[in-house]
Structure formats: C-alpha cells, structure tokens
C-alpha cells in the first residue's frame, strides 16, 4: 500500500515540481516572485479546454498550443507591460502587482468566455486531460494509476530534463544563470539582461501553463484551486531556496508523496480540523524559517524601497492638509444629509480604511510587507465575539480582541526578526493561511460556522446601528491613528525604525535595536487591524470565521499600495475606493469581471509608479509648478558644459586618432550630479591612467563609459561612432569591456562558465593562465582574490576588446598578484587594446601609463603624458591644492 501512495504521490508531486520550477526560474532570473504563476496556469488550462471543446482541436494539439505557444507568449507580454518595470520597482510594488494579476488574469479569461458565448467554464465543469477520455486505468507495482497520471509523469520528466539541458548546456541557459548571479556584471559582459528576463518569463510561464494543463482534469477550471496549487508549489520553490531548480523539482515530488502519506496514515489528526489540509502551508513556513535566512538584508526590510521625494515639502502645513480637511467636512455633511444606504456604504469604507491604516504602519513605515492583516482583523473580531458571548461587557471584549490581535502580531514578528524581504512576506502568507485553515476552524474559538453575534456599540445617546454614528466614530479613530503614525514617524523609535530600515548594519553599530523596533511596529499594526476587525464585526452585527478570509488581506494590501502606502491618506482613500468602485460598477451594470480586470491593470500602473496614486498626484503638481517656474528664466538649469582643463588634451596628431572618447559628459544619480563635463580620450595601444581622490567621480566615469549609467549631457564616442544611447550590453558587444570595482566574476558559476560568458572556446585562456585550467570546474566564488581578478581579466586576453576599462584592478590584492595583473595589461597594450586604468593608489598605474588624467570634483583637471607628472601635480590632484 505504501508503495502505491509513493507512486501516485510522485505523480501529484510532478505537477508541484513543474509549477515550482517555473516559479523558481522566473524569481531567480528576475527577482520578481510571481503570485500570478497559478493564474497563468489557470488561463492556459482554460484555453486548452476551450480549444478542445469549443474549437474541436484534438487534445494533444490543444495542449501544445496552450502550453507551448500561448503560455510563453503570455509570459513575454507580461514581461513587456509589467514585469520589466516591476523588477526595478521595489518589493511592495512587485508583490502587489502580481497579486493584481492573480485576480485579473482569470477574470479576463472568464470575461472572454462570457463575451464570446463559449461553453461554460467554472468550478462545476470537468475538463478532460491530454490522454484518452475517459481515462484508462492500469496497475503498476500494485498501485492503480490512470493514463492521465502517466502522461503527467512523463511530461514532467521531459520538462525537467529539457530544463536541465537548457540551463546547463546552451548559451541561453548560461546567460540566464549569469544574469541571475550578478545582473550588472552580466550586462557588462555583453549579455542583454532584458532579453534574458524575457526568456525567463517565457519559460516560467510555459512551465506554469504545462502544469496548468496537466492539473486541469483533477482541479477543474477553478481559479481558486490554481491559487492553492501555487501555494503548494511555492513550498517546493522555497525548499529549492528560490534559486535551485533541481532542488525545487525534488521538493515538489517529495511534497506530493508527503501529502499522500499524511492523508493515508494520520487519522489521529482528524480531530483538529484543517491541520492535514494545511500540511503544505506548515512545510512552507518551516522551509522559510529554516532554509531561507536572508543573507543580504538581515533587517527584514527592503532598503531599496527608498521613499519617493516629498514633492509637497515646500507647501505650508495648512495647504497640505486642506484637501483632507475639506474631504472630511464634505463627508460629514454628506453623512447628515445623504440617503441612509450610501452613508452606510461610506461607513463600511471607513471600516476598511481603519484596517488599511495598519498597512501604513507596517509597510509604509516599517518597509515590511505583511499579507496576514486579514488574519489579525479576524483574530480580533472572533476573540471579541468569544469574550462577549462568555459574558464580558462589550467594551472589555473589544479591548480583549484588540490585545489578542496585537499579541498575535508580536508572535508573527518573531520570525520577522530573522527573515527579510520576500521571505518574510511569504512567511506572513503562510501564517495567514494557517490561521484560516486551522486556528479559525477551531469550533470553540469561532463557534463553528455560526460565528458570534455582536450588539451595536452604544454611547448612551446613540449607538452604532446608525451608520452616521459609525462614520463619525471612524473618522475620529482614523484621525487618532493618523496622529499616532505622525508621532511615531517623528519619535525616537520612529527614527530608529527608519534607520534600521535603510541601513541595518549601521543602525546596529549605533546601538539601535532593530528587533525591538520591528516588534513594536508589528504589534501596533496588528492592534490597528484588530480594532478595524472588531468594528467590522460590530457594524455587521456578527462575525464568522469566513467573513475576513486570508485572501482579502492580499487584495487589501493591493488597494492600499495602489493609493499610496506611506500615508494615512492612502489608506483612507483605499478604503473608500474599495467600497465605491464595486458599487459604481454595479450601478452601471458592468460585469464584476471588469472590476477585477481594472484592479489588475492597477498593478501595471504600479510597475511605472510604484508609490501609488497620491504620490503621483503630488509629483505631477510638482512638475507643473516646476515647468511654470522654469518657463520664465529660460536656460537657467542647463548643465555647465565647459572645456574642462587648461591642458592640451585636445592636441591631436600625437599618434593615431582616439578610439574611445568621452566628450563633455555630465552624469549623476537622481538629483545629484557627479560628473560635470568630463573629457577623456584613449587611443589604441595606449594606457591612460585616471587618477584622483576618493569621490572624484572615477567609478562614475567608468560606469558612464561602459553604458551602465545614462548620460545627462555630452557624448560617448567609440571609433568615431556616437554610442551614447547604446545600453551596456550593446557597448560590450561592440568591444568596450569594463572590469568593475571589486571582482568581476560570477561567483555562482564555475571558472569555465565564467569564461564562456565572453568566449566561445576558453582553451586559449587555460594555456596562458594554467592556474585557472586546474580549477575550471570550481565555482568562481571559491577562488582566491587574485585568481578572481585574473579570471576577470582572462577573457580579455583570449579575445581582446577594443577598449578595456579596469576600475581599481589592484584593490585588495597581494603585491605579487598585482604585478601579474599589470603584466596582463602590458600584454593587452601590445595587442593594441585601448586601456583606461582607474586607480586611487597611483604608483602601479603610473608605472605602466602612457598618459595620465587627474580627476577632481567631477572634472578632468589635467591630462598629459606620463613624463609630465611630478610630485606637485599629484599633490594638486589629490589634495585639491592649486
């Protein structure tokens, strides 16, 4: 019997494995965890079903078209309109964007089915699989299997082998793995990471589609079932540490077997409703906590979620608040004059707004994405109901409920101390599902399906059964929460939180406690969510375990982030929008699917404007003002481009024409200009040493030269061709190679694979550098510093670029290795490469240089032959003494 469970468990596991591999692949290649992975599977399955049933296409062909053509095409399309932007948009926007898709994609599919009058497709339809229909059964080793299961297993095996071969033995696979390993370096090696991401999305979607089609005879056309499948697959991906496809695959197979064994042998768990269903979720949580300690972002926060510039900073306080005060007054007037039904809707919107305020605390301030907010609200409401029915006074029951939510929040914060970023997000997801599936199923706590009844909250002269009272009460509470948030941001602990968020290590060394700050945030946020949950229950008159399902927490997050999660205003707007939009759609007789699609489209907007509607309004206002201000004194801000040096840099005729030239380049980061008009030339077979003090702009010059940083003004010329607009990978392919500061190797690839990112055939390198030949199968990350630097430069030896830019090549290396590195440079010069060496320590560079350029404060202040460099010039360059 156990063999039977094992065999048929492997079949189930194969579906998890295929879906999980796609998830891992796209996450590793692009950094976006795609919650919509299951939705892609659903849409593909829907197409398969309709092709087969409505269009009469044979099942095998329908499967091929759906999973082999449609799903990759969908992946490419999503890459273009959404994922490409999301990859740069910060974690919150990524999560919200893909959650939006989870809702929008199935809705889109079902709307099309509706509009075209295709056969009904919902949870009650039972689509066939790829194989014979009805299925044929047979026995293998005493286990009863059917043809669909056999096909599933075969397809998964083929997909696994194909994926392995693709990743390990094709240049595309190598490029993808290189981009996963070090994205920036990959572009410098001429790899178009954008195209690589597109490929990853196509492959990932294809796998999701394949899993979708394979699963459809079992799951039916039920979008929820596909989301459940996604969670199980996420468990597999987590056990593959979101990086390793083979491990993900193995974990997927194992999960299938474990589920079967649990279903077969754990009847003793039957008393605890939901526990056995929750096995994948429990494993997900365990996997996250045990395997996925975030290494780079320990503080459980996303430092790259930098706050947007405050465009309203210059506006007086009264003016900033005016719209909100007016809005509140208008709402109050409406409350006492408007029809009861709409006032009730407004009150409902404000209840949601109060819950949404908790996102402002935990995500807006704390930078942690929490998907368990609905669980907190539900927890508080159920506890309140339980306490009230046990005879407590209502006010006391409410306090107990809020405290319970707060306590659970602290409990959730404990894993948050160790986890960071997406891992934390997934952990809150697991806890939310666990609460839904197990905790809220405990009859004593949630009173079964009946739930708890709650009376209206009385104030002596009025009670909350009147929606007007609720509006006023909620406005007051939201105002209080707003005050609290403002004080939090300005208090010592608020500053500590911000410090921990933006620079965890620095904060720790300054004696700030990250864990304490995080616990405070989580406890506070869940208390606010809890208060909202209790008021939700009070205004509804009852609460059951299913009133605030976990999934609504995901939708809430999306609604708030779309408006702007950094301010209470966003939460209030979000609450009102969440109630008003469905109401309007219904009034206009628009299909509910359209609402879901619009919601998903919001995710696409987010890919472009990650800070939400409010920030965007402020920004456009700011821009309008700026445009008006600049219109009058024209040309006031144009960059000061001027001949940079008094030296004869432009004196041509000394040798051949310059091969590579920077011409009056102005560049910088955001609002901070670093290069203020850099002129620089390198000729073939010439070594130019670029020297300067720390902060002079040397590395920025390298980045601009390689195309890694866009230019605000000026030109970059290669062989007389203007390459200013070329992206980094195109310049690299044209022969501009940058060996970046630190080590320019892919630590996760072997020596051989590192070389293959630039060379078709690395043998020449091994002849020249035998110490690398001995270690060709070793991961580059395991090499010594010197070996890594040689590996960085080795490709250039075998296939010399036109221009080699080396940023601090001797940094941190032993003198012996430094000499070897400079020997490489000398050899390259002999072979006609134009070399630009950037060094802070001048001695070694000066020894090899033909010409020297000094940089100071973003300009080249002197250029001249090596011979003209003396102590005075060096002093002047480094100390700024003239």
């Amino acid at each position, binding site marked *: 019997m156990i063999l039977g*469970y094992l065999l*048929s468990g492997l*079949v189930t596991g194969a*579906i998890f494995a295929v879906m999980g591999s796609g998830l891992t692949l796209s996450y590793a290649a692009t950094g976006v965890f795609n919650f919509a992975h299951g939705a892609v599977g659903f849409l593909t399955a829907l197409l398969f079903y309709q092709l087969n049933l409505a269009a009469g296409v044979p099942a095998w062909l329908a499967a091929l078209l759906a999973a082999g053509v449609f799903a990759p095409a969908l992946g490419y399309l999503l890459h273009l309109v959404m994922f490409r932007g999301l990859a740069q948009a910060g974690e919150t926007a990524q999560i919200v964007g893909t959650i939006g898709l989870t809702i929008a994609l199935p809705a889109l599919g079902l709307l099309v089915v509706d509009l075209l009058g295709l056969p009904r497709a*919902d949870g*009650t*339809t*039972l689509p*066939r699989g790829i194989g014979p229909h*009805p299925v044929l*059964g047979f026995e293998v080793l005493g286990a*009863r299997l059917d043809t669909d299961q056999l096909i599933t297993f075969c397809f998964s095996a083929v997909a696994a082998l194909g994926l392995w071969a693709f990743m390990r033995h094709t240049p595309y696979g190598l490029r993808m793995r290189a981009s996963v390993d070090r994205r920036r370096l990959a572009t410098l090696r001429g790899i178009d990471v954008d195209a690589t991401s597109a490929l990853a999305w196509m492959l990932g979607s294809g796998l999701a589609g394949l899993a979708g089609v394979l*699963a459809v005879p079992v799951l*039916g056309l*039920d979008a*929820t*079932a596909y989301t*459940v499948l996604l969670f199980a697959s996420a468990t597999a991906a987590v056990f593959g540490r979101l990086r390793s496809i083979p491990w993900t695959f193995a974990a997927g197979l194992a999960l*299938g077997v474990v*589920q*079967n064994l649990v*279903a*077969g042998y754990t*009847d003793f768990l039957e008393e605890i*409703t939901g526990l*056995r*269903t929750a096995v994948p979720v429990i494993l997900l949580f365990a996997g996250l906590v045990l395997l996925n300690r975030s290494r780079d972002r320990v503080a459980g926060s996303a430092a790259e979620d930098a706050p947007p510039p405050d465009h309203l900073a210059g506006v007086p*306080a009264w003016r900033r*608040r005016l719209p909100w*005060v007016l809005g*509140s*007054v208008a709402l*109050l007037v409406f409350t*006492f004059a408007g*029809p009861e*039904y*709409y006032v*009730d*809707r407004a009150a*409902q919107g404000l209840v949601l707004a109060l819950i949404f305020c908790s996102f402002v605390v935990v995500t807006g301030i704390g930078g942690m994405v929490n998907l368990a907010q609905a669980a907190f609200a539900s927890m508080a409401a159920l506890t309140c109901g339980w306490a009230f029915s046990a005879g407590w006074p209502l006010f006391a029951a409410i306090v107990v409920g809020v405290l319970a939510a707060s306590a659970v929040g602290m409990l959730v914060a404990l894993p948050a101390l160790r986890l960071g970023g997406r891992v934390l997000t997934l952990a809150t997801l697991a806890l939310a599902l666990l609460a839904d599936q197990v905790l809220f199923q405990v009859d004593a706590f949630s009173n*079964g*399906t*009946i*739930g708890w009844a709650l009376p209206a909250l009385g104030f002596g002269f*009025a009670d909350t*059964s*009147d929606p*007007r*009272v609720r509006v*006023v009460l909620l*406005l*007051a509470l939201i*105002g209080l929460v707003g005050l609290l948030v403002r004080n939090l941001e300005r208090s010592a602990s608020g500053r500590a939180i911000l410090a921990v968020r933006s620079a965890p290590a620095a904060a720790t060394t300054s004696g700030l406690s990250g864990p304490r700050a995080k616990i405070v945030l989580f406890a506070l946020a869940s208390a606010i969510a809890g208060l909202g949950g209790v008021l*939700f229950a009070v205004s*509804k008159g009852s609460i*059951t*375990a*299913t*009133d605030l399902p976990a999934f609504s927490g995901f939708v809430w997050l999306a609604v708030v982030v779309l408006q702007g999660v950094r301010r209470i205003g966003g939460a209030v707007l979000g609450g009102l929008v969440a109630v008003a939009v469905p109401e309007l759609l219904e009034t206009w007789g628009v299909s*509910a699917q359209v609402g879901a699609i619009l919601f998903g489209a919001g995710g696409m907007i987010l890919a472009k404007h990650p800070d939400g509607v409010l920030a965007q309004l402020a920004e456009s206002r700011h821009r309008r003002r700026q445009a008006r201000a600049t219109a009058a004194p024209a040309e006031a801000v144009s960059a000061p481009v001027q001949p940079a040096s008094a030296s004869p840099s432009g004196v041509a005729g000394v040798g051949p024409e310059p091969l590579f030239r920077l011409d009056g380049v102005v560049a910088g980061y955001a609002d901070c200009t670093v290069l203020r008009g850099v002129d620089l030339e390198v000729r073939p077979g010439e070594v130019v040493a670029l020297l300067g003090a720390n902060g002079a702009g040397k590395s920025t010059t390298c980045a601009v030269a390689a195309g890694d940083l866009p230019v605000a003004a000026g030109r970059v010329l290669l062989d007389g061709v203007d390459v200013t607009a070329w992206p980094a990978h195109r310049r690299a392919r044209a022969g501009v190679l940058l060996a970046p500061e630190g080590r320019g190797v892919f630590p996760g690839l072997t020596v051989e694979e590192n070389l293959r990112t630039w060379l078709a055939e690395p043998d020449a390198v091994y002849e020249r550098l035998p110490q690398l030949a001995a270690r060709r199968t070793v991961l580059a990350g395991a090499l010594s510093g010197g070996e890594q630097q040689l590996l960085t430069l080795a490709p250039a030896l075998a296939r010399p670029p036109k221009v080699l830019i080396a940023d601090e090549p001797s940094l941190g290396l032993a003198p012996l290795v430094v000499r070897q590195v400079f020997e490489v440079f000398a050899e390259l010069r002999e072979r006609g490469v134009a070399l630009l060496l950037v060094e802070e320590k001048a001695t070694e560079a000066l020894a090899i240089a033909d010409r020297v350029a000094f940089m100071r404060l973003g300009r080249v202040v002197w250029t001249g032959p090596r011979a003209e460099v003396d102590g005075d010039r060096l002093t002047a360059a480094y100390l700024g003494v003239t």
Partner: protein
Amino acid sequence: MVRRHQRRSAAILAAAAVLFTGLLAGCAAQQKSAGGGTAGVTDTTVKVGGVLTKTSASGYSTKDAEIGAKARFERANAEGGVNGRKIEFVGAEDDGQDAAKGDAAAKKLVQKDQVFALVPVHAPNFGGAAFLEQQGVPWFGWATGPQWCGTKTGFGYSGCLAPKKGAGSQTWWGSQMADLLGGASGKTVYVQTTDSSGSKYGGTTISQSFQAAGFKLVGLNSGLPAAAPPPDWLPYVNKIMTADGGKAPDVLVSIIAGTKFNVGLYSALKRAGYKGVLTDATSYDPAILKDPAIAQALEGVVAAPMFEPFESNAPEIAAFKADVEKVSPGATLTQHMAIGYWAADIFLDMLKKTGKDLTREKFLATGNGSYTYENAGFGRVEYPKDHSEPNGCGALVRLEGGAFRVAKSMKCFDNVPLK
C-alpha cells in the same frame, strides 16, 4: 521646529474638535432608521428582491433561483396578484459568496430599493442575516447556513438546515434510502466530508440520519482538503474500500459540495471496484448530463433533492415546469430554479394569509404564529418550529442510463434531536 510642531498639533486638535461637534450634531439629528413596517407596499404592489451567489471564485452559482422566483411571481401576477397587490420583483443581487457583499446587498435592497421582503435568498455564505433580523425584514430562501436558524425573520423553504445540538435533525435521507434498499438492517454506511467545520457538521447530521434509519455507520472521514480536490484520491479510496472490516460499505454518502469532487471520488471508487450505492445531495443537476464523461462517472448515483423531482408526475411539478418555460423558454431545469420557485411560493402563501392590511409586523406575526403550509413540491413547513429545525422532507432520484429517474417521491419524516 518646536513651534511648527505645536502649530500642527493645534491644527489637528481643531480638526478633532470639528469631528466631535459633528458627533454631537449627529446625535441631535438622530432619526428612526428603518423605513417603517409598510416599506415596499402600495395598494397595488408589493416590492421584493433577492440575494443570490450568482458568481463565486469556485464557480458555484445559484443564479437560476432568480428564474424560479420570477416564474412563481409571474403566475401570481397573472392570477391577479395577492390580496389585490401585484408582486414587483426587482431581481436578485449577487453576493459573490462574500459575507460582506451579502450584507451590503441586503442593505441596498432594504434601504435603497425599499423592498418589503427578500425573496429569494440563496447564498451559502449570506452575510445580511443580522441586519435583516434587526430591521425586521422577512427573507425567504434555502436555509443551509446557521445564520438562518433561530431568527424570527428568516424562512427557509425546507426549514433550518443547520440545527443546534439538541434541536431536531433530519432522518429523511436515511429513511428514504432504507425504503429504497428494502430495509436498512445489516447494511453499512460510510460518510465522507471535507476538512472544514461546515462539512464536518453536515457529516454529523447525515450520519445520524442514516443511523436513525437503522444503518450501521462504519466510517465518518473528514480528511478531504476543503479548498480544492486532492490531486490524488488513492488514500481516501483505500479507506473506504476497507471500512467495513476489510470490505467496502453498502452505502457511501458524500457530503461534499461540487461536482468536481464527487466525480473525482466516484470515478476513483469505481476504478477500485466499488459496487455499493453512492449518494449525495448535489448531483441532481441536469446540466451534468451534457458531458458524457461526467454522466458516466455519476452513473448509478442516488441524489437527494429537497424538493419533488422534475421527473415526477405531480401536478405541482407540471405547473412549475410550465411557469419556468414561460419566463425562460428552453431553460434546463436546475435545483436552484426549484429552490427559488418554492421559496417564492411560501412567501406568497404567507402574504395571502396575512390579509389585505399589510405591514412587516403583521406579516411576521402570521408567519410566526402556528403557520403551516403543505405542498407536494417541497413537503411541508411549520413556523416558528422550522426556524430551528429542518422540515424533515426529501426525495431520492437515481441516475440510470444517462437520465434521472424518481427513486422516492417527496416524503416527510420525524426529526430526532441532534447529538
């Protein structure tokens, strides 16, 4: 900095003061909120509307109940209305199987559309019960959830199907099955539910129903995951096939909503060689006959509807079919149509018995004052008794050769207290 701080705080205080004044003003202007007992009633019309789960994430839909109710109301109107008043049916709202949306839908119907009563309410997760009870608005439908039970305003067409412990619980399913199989003595039954408290509760009541009829319960399993069917049925099928001391049980009862689950379970059982009776509450759905594979998987299943089957010869069913054909020509008859129809039928009867002088208070007084109504279509309801227990009536149909046949016509049995 400090001064700016203080100024801002002052501004906030001022805003708070505005809010507080608003609060006081609000209380001064406090009015009676409900629209009175005659809302939705004119001399010539009574306005009603319903709440259904027309759409849901799982695809479950009760939208056909709107057709059923409409068909019944049109007949009443064609016969001249009730006590001189025609029924103005504003249609049904969709709650999307979301309790909060259901609450909003109930409020919209009562506050905005000003209906007299909610007919039909057929939504498994209906969230408007507390509001309707508080406002004293009657509502009629299929009382599958506990929110119906113990109210004074919620009238299930087959009583309250989620009785509390100690209240009456149905025995008709087991008794009808015993009659069908020629007695229950020596026969075994296995009950399969999903891993959720709702389904487990169903398992308890149905087990009791079969035990009361004389069956021997050899298994009550609630291991199935609730959200989606298991990708692999093997562990569940193994348990069933060996439940009766190594043998398969005589009867398998599936308390699982969703054809998908049942088709998966039944197909797996048949492949494993199960020869006993399969029975469930949801398979009586003519729509499933359209797909030969589903029909094949469900072949032989005994479904247990809580209304007289459409294949019956009763005149009430003929009238039902004619009425539906009038409002929706060519429509396939479904369970939800019947539920909408019979819920409307009971509402009309209660309306007639209330008389010409109509308010919600009078209407509820009629409904809750020893009200009894019998009809071959759904058996019998007795209120206020059926506010807390099921009406105890049901029928059986069997799927044979790709068509449903009446196995047992509608019959009512005595309830037993729920353990």
